[in-house]
C-alpha cells in the first residue's frame, strides 16, 4: 500500500507499506450476532457487510514526519485496513481504515478511523435532485476544515495546555513545501556555480 501523509504546511511524506496478504477468516467486529430475517434493518445489513471476511492489511512504521504541533516527530503508526473491494457482485464496497499513533514511549496517543456508514453511491445513477442534495450535504465540509482545525488547536492549547512542537525541517524522504517567490528566485543556479 502506498500511503501519503500531507500536513498543513504543504509538506508530504509517502510511505510504502508491505502487505502480508492476511485474509481474516473470523468476523472483525462483534461475533456470532443472531439476526432475525424479518427484523433485518438497514443498519443490521450494514453490520453484516462489515462482518464479511475480507482481506485485511496491517503494518507498523516509524513516524518521521511533522503532522501536528501537538505531537513530536517521534513514535510510530499502526494501520489496520480492510480491503474495500467486494469479492462478489452482490457485495457492497466497504471501507474501514484504522490508524493509531503510538508515542515514543509506546503508548497509543491518537486513534483515527475512516469507515463506510452507508452504501456506496454511483454518481452516474443519481438524479439531479439527489446530486443537489448530496452537494448541499457535503459541499461545505472542505471549506470548514481549516476553521475546525484552528478551533480544535485553540482548545488543545488554551484549555488542555498541550505542549507545542515547532515545525522541524523535513527529514530525508519527505517532500518539502513549495518555495516562496523569494526562495524560487533565490534558488539561483548561481549558488552552486560560484566555484565552477
Amino acid at each position, binding site marked *: 500500500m502506498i500511503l501519503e501523509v500531507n500536513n498543513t504546511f504543504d509538506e508530504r511524506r509517502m510511505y510504502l507499506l508491505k502487505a502480508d496478504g492476511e485474509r481474516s477468516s473470523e468476523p472483525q467486529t462483534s461475533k456470532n450476532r443472531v439476526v432475525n430475517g424479518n427484523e433485518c434493518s438497514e443498519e443490521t445489513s450494514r453490520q453484516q457487510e462489515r462482518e464479511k471476511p475480507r482481506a485485511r492489511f496491517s503494518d507498523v512504521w516509524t513516524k518521521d514526519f511533522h503532522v501536528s504541533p501537538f505531537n513530536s*516527530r517521534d513514535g510510530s503508526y499502526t494501520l489496520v485496513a480492510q480491503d474495500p473491494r467486494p469479492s462478489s457482485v452482490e457485495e457492497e464496497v466497504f471501507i474501514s481504515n484504522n490508524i493509531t499513533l503510538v508515542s515514543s514511549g509506546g503508548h497509543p496517543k491518537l486513534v483515527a478511523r475512516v469507515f463506510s456508514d452507508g452504501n456506496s453511491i454511483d454518481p452516474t445513477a443519481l438524479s439531479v435532485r439527489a446530486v443537489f442534495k448530496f452537494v448541499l450535504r457535503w459541499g461545505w465540509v472542505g471549506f470548514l476544515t481549516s476553521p475546525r482545525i484552528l478551533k480544535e488547536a485553540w482548545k488543545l492549547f488554551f484549555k488542555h495546555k498541550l505542549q507545542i512542537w*515547532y*515545525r*522541524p*525541517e*523535513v*527529514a*530525508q524522504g*519527505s*517532500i*518539502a*513545501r*513549495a*518555495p*516562496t517567490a*523569494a*526562495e*524560487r*528566485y*533565490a*534558488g*539561483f*543556479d*548561481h*549558488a*552552486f*556555480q*560560484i*566555484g*565552477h
Partner: protein
Amino acid sequence: MPLSVAYNAAPGITSSCRLNSTHENLQGPLKDVLEVSVSSPAFYSRFVHYDDVAEALDRESSRAETKNRTISVVNASLLTILYASETKCTSKLASTEKMLTRSDAIRWDLLRRLRCPPKAVAYPEAHVGASQKNEFRAQKFSALDAYVIRYCKDAAQYRRTATELFLAQRWCWGLTFLSTGVDVLIRFLVLKWTLTNAFDMLHTSNVMSVMVRILCVNAIHVWGVAKGT
C-alpha cells in the same frame, strides 16, 4: 584538484545539475562526487544571509541540529576544494565594486549593510554558544554577491530579493509580506500627499520652486528609483 558536484535542488526549483571542474590535467572519470541535496526551500532564503559559503553549508548541514537541517551533504570532505574556489572568487571583489554604477554601488552598499543572520531555527542548537553566534560578520559582500554582480544579468533582481529578505528579517519578524505591505503603504501615502498638496503648489512663478514641486508630484517614481525598481 578536479571536482564533481551533484546538486539536487529543492522540489519546485528546477535547477538540479551536475558540475564538473574543467581541470587541465583531468584524465578519466571523476571518482569522488560531492553531493549536495537541498531538502527544504528555506535553505535558499537562509543562504543569502551568510557572507561565507563554507559557513552557510556548514551551519545548514552538519553543524545544525537534525531537525533544523535544510541540506544534506555527501562526501563533505570535498567541500574544501569548493571553498578554495570561493576564496578565489571573493578575492575579485575589489574589481567587482568598480563594475557598478554610482547608483548601483549605493544600492549594493545598502544590501551589504543590511545583511543579518538568518531567521532563528525552531530547535535551538545545543553546541552554539554566544561566542559562535557573534561570528556572524555583517558589513561584507558575500561570494554570491560578487558572483552575481560579475556574471549575472539579473543582478538587480537578486539584489532586490536579498534586500527584501534582510529588511523583513530585521524589522518585520522575517515576514516578507509585511515588508511588502510597508512598501505599498509608503506608495499610498506618497500618492495621497501628492494628490492633496503637490498639485496646488504648481501655481507659482519661481522656476526653481516649480522644478522642486514637479519632483514632488512624481514622488512615487522617485521612491521607485531610490529602491531600484
